[in-house]
């Protein structure tokens, strides 16, 4: 059963840049109410689209390095969900969504990106 992987900056190379499939990174922290709202929704995503996308999250209060990295990625508000393909950011979802909106938006971002079409595993016949 796929699940959400908690990552730190040190994991970026392996988990995001080196990923064979698209990756979502949620930038969040424990004092953010909207992040709390989104927790059960995001945690339901692996069961729905976890075969096509890797789902990860980074707590920006865990370390200064995490915060620096989030700022460098252009994150200015939490929660921000950045979608990466081949290590490149292809889109952002900022703030609260319903479960249906969330997986539709992630799949739409992946579907629209040429990088991602290559990165998404082909469906088996």
């Amino acid at each position: 059963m796929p699940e959400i992987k908690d990552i730190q900056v040190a994991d970026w190379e392996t988990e995001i840049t080196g990923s064979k499939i698209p990756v979502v990174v949620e930038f969040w922290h424990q004092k953010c109410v909207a992040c709390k709202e989104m927790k059960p929704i995001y945690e339901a995503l692996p069961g729905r689209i976890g075969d096509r996308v890797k789902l990860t999250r980074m707590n920006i209060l865990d370390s200064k390095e995490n915060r620096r990295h989030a700022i460098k990625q252009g994150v200015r508000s939490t929660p921000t969900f950045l979608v990466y393909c081949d290590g490149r950011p292809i889109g952002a979802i900022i703030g609260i969504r319903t479960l249906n909106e969330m997986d539709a938006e992630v799949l739409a971002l992946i579907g629209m990106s040429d990088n991602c079409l290559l990165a998404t595993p082909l469906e088996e016949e």
Partner: protein
Amino acid sequence: MSLYDVVVIGGGPAGLTAALYTSRARLKTKLITGPTPGGQIALTYNVNNYPGLHEPTTGPELVERLITHATKFGAELDRREATVVDFSLKPYKVQLGSELIAAKTVIVATGSLNRKLGLEAEDQLMGKGVFVCATCDAALYEDLRVVVVGGGDSALQEALDLSKFAEEVVIVHRGDDVTGCQCLKTQAQENPKIRFIFNTVVTDIIGEEYVEAVKLMKTPDGVVETFQTDGVLVAIGWDPNTGIFKGQLELDADGNIVSDGVKTGKPGIFVAGDLNDRVYRQVVTACASGCMAAIEAERYLTQKPD
């Protein structure tokens, strides 16, 4: 259509307290909170002045406790928004998405909305450098500069919260001194990361993808300068959140619901919290008026059960 003894609109401290009291009095209670229950206090780091909570307690922690307490006695918490109300006939009606519910009594506790500067760029750059909640986003301004617009309690509090991360916090205020309480004012003045620019208004926010600068205009001479900044937090006051009650309840020129204490002009409809409080605006006062509105609703139902 479901009929409730009490429908509470608003899930901040006032609404949560009202629902706690009415459900504990065994009144069938619907608590309509919108998507993020907790109201404004959910947006603050530490609440240091709620009686009994003397250990460090964050806003979100207090909200969690209030929600647990409010639902413990059976109030139905509903995260949809009330979009339309009809208070012309009893039972009163409240629209929730595609569902219409009926209420013998209504407690209105919708709080207030942050006032905006009214600049086009403010909406365009929201979440991209323009923000309203230091608790939520301060960490993303670590070692950066942030302009806080305003000079009241909330501007000072937000500036203090931001200073934990930001390299510099610049409070820009149109008056010649801040109007916030002395304790916050002293803390801000003594904080080496905070500085003040008085007699100045923000006339524009500049940035393509992210906020890069603001235009500052000195008053009264009108001299304009471009001031580099990575973030803009707007804390210039609030307006009562009474849009959906226009035409249903009597409102004054500022949009406040005309009331006598917690009673409105309509029988069985009560108000609570910051919505109708321009003076105190604290969690404890919001909770207190939520309690008063609930007790009045209970009395009303005992005297006029239909």
